[in-house]
């Protein structure tokens, strides 16, 4: 099936009433959590994961992806109106978006963000439709050797892209890999690292770790530094950008889309990295760099497009390689596995309705999001008046129900507590949870493929450099690592993360 007929087929799947409903629900929930600071897409999806078991597989994945890109729209609303990012990826929208709002152009800023996101969303959908099918055909020929090298490349990219200390990122990855080996070894049936606790024989569940490291940690950190919420409510009479805004915003939006589409593919990339990089690019290209931070349209349109494009193209590694590139995609992978679908190149041939349905639903979802966001903006702003004190107990309740429902066992609730403590301490010690989480997900795949590769080569470890594809992947990994360690690149990397 070529890309165009695939997309049409996908539209016919996504237009089925049930799928349309879940697409809308995903977009709505995404906007909601995007607007509300303190609850991110990863935690939300972790809570909803057990429920997706009761849904049709296609509908479940359509809803979950909708939450992710929907959150990118909602996050910028809060950033523009009250100078507080609803999502991490909206930090950049605070810079110029809030300045525009202060100059009385809040409506224009919101419209620029929404239209930029819509444009990026549509383009990114076509990027997936064009590039994912040939990529999965190529990946189908990968053996265990290539897979190991590919995953090592992925982990290396995580280290390079992680903020802060490389040593800590590496330690988090090794810890994540080690945690993933807990439980019964599939090859021999021996139990490993269980310390005699029978609940650990099946290994640690993904949901309690994700909830502990992200949701619980986030709540405690919010409680220790209460934020002041001052809503600058002003009349939003004019919701349409000027011609000048279009002239300056559109090229920025197009560049942001292109940049985001590429960066979204990188492990640990996705939406956050994309918008930082786009802001830096726009500032460099602009003839008026002094306007940045004071309400430059380019500084809003570019990053807003980039984060939405990045959010969507981060689906590509999951759909073609079976490798989640960020925590949100790891949750989507988890949802697929609950439904009995293994993420990877075979999705395209074995479940074309899921592949094309999900891709096409992004077109519909993005269109819905503009409608959900712009006319209903006043409603979302009202939601911000709910004090955090009433908000976090509700998150805890849903977290408990979600964690318990994974295996209908209170053992996972104890696990939630353990990882809540660990997550809080790690965040205090400036360690990122994302490398740990992704390593935990990739761990079993790496071990299985590594052992198989070594068995096939009769213990000859040189296969990783004598197989051409594997050698190329490893060479890229080494180059990335060298770049991160070299002092000149290091300072530039830190600079890129600092402000853009």
């Amino acid at each position: 099936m070529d890309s165009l007929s695939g997309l049409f087929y996908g539209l016919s799947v996504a237009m089925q009433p049930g799928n349309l409903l879940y697409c809308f629900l995903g977009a709505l929930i995404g906007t909601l959590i995007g607007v509300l600071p303190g609850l991110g897409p990863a935690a939300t999806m972790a809570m909803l994961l057990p429920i997706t078991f009761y849904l049709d597989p296609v509908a479940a994945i359509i809803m979950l992806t909708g939450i992710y890109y929907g959150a990118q729209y909602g996050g910028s609303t809060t950033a523009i109106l009250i100078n507080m990012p609803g999502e991490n990826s909206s930090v950049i929208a605070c810079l110029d978006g809030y300045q525009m709002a202060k100059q009385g152009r809040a409506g224009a800023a919101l419209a620029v963000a929404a239209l930029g996101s819509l444009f990026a969303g549509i383009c990114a959908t076509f990027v997936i439709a064009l590039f994912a099918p040939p990529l999965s055909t190529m990946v189908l020929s990968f053996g265990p050797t290539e897979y190991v090298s590919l995953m090592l490349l992925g982990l290396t990219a995580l280290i390079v892209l992680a903020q802060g200390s490389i040593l800590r990122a590496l330690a988090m990855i090794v810890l994540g890999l080690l945690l993933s080996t807990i439980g019964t070894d599939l090859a021999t049936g021996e139990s490993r690292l269980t310390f005699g606790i029978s609940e650990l024989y099946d290994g640690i569940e993904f949901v309690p770790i994700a909830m502990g490291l992200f949701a619980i940690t986030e709540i405690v950190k919010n409680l220790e530094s209460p934020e002041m919420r001052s809503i600058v409510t002003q009349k939003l009479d004019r919701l349409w950008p000027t011609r000048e805004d279009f002239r300056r915003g559109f090229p920025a939006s197009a560049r942001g889309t292109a940049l985001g589409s590429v960066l979204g593919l990188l492990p640990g990339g996705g939406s956050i990295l994309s918008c930082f990089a786009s802001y830096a690019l726009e500032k460099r290209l602009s003839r008026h760099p002094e306007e940045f931070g004071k309400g430059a349209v380019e500084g809003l349109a570019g990053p807003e497009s980039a984060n939405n494009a990045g959010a969507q193209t981060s689906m590509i590694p999951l759909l073609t390689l079976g490798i989640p590139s960020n925590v949100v995609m790891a949750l989507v992978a988890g949802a697929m596995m609950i439904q009995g679908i293994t993420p990877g190149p075979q999705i395209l041939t074995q479940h074309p309705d899921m592949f094309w349905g999900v891709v096409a639903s992004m077109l519909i979802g993005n269109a819905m999001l503009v409608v959900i966001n712009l006319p209903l903006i006043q409603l979302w702003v009202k939601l911000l008046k709910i004090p955090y004190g009433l908000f976090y107990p509700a998150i805890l309740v849903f977290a408990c129900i979600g964690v318990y429902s994974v295996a209908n066992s209170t053992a996972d609730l104890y696990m939630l507590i353990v990882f809540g403590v660990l997550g809080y301490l790690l965040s205090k010690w400036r360690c990122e949870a994302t490398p740990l989480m992704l390593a935990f997900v990739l761990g079993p795949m790496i071990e299985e493929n590594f052992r198989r590769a070594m068995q096939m080569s009769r213990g000859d470890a040189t296969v990783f450099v004598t197989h051409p594809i594997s050698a190329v992947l490893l060479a890229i990994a080494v180059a990335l690592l060298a770049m991160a360690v070299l002092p000149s690149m290091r300072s530039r990397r830190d600079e890129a993360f600092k402000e853009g």
Partner: protein
Amino acid sequence: MKVNLRSGDVPLGLLLMGFALAAMWNLRELEFGTFTRMGPGFIPLVLAGMLLVLALAILIKGLVGHDEAVRYAFKPLAIILAGLAFVAVALDHLGLVICIPVLVIIASTAQGRVQWKPVLALAAFLTAFCYVLFILALGLPIPAFPV
């Protein structure tokens, strides 16, 4: 050289070292195997060794470096965890209709000054909402009432 014990590196290094040593001790009797036929202990032991080296590096960096001291807020953490611990212990016996309001009330005290009226209203609303959505509508096998 001044030894810096309050930076994050020292406790992080010690914790990771503890994890690595515990893992190595647990794995000591598992078959290590060879490169061709790896035993169940091969990969975890290699990883634990790597973790030990990294933990040592972080620890040394912390001892000689001059990082800022870390400030912890253990009170909200302890209260939130106490609420979760109650649910973990009681859910199978007391069910959702008891656990949800208790969790909401315990967790609310983590914010210092509590306004009880909205908190109690939230507890009642969440209990009803979760009962209707998860038990009645979705039919999740969660204990609902005390047994």
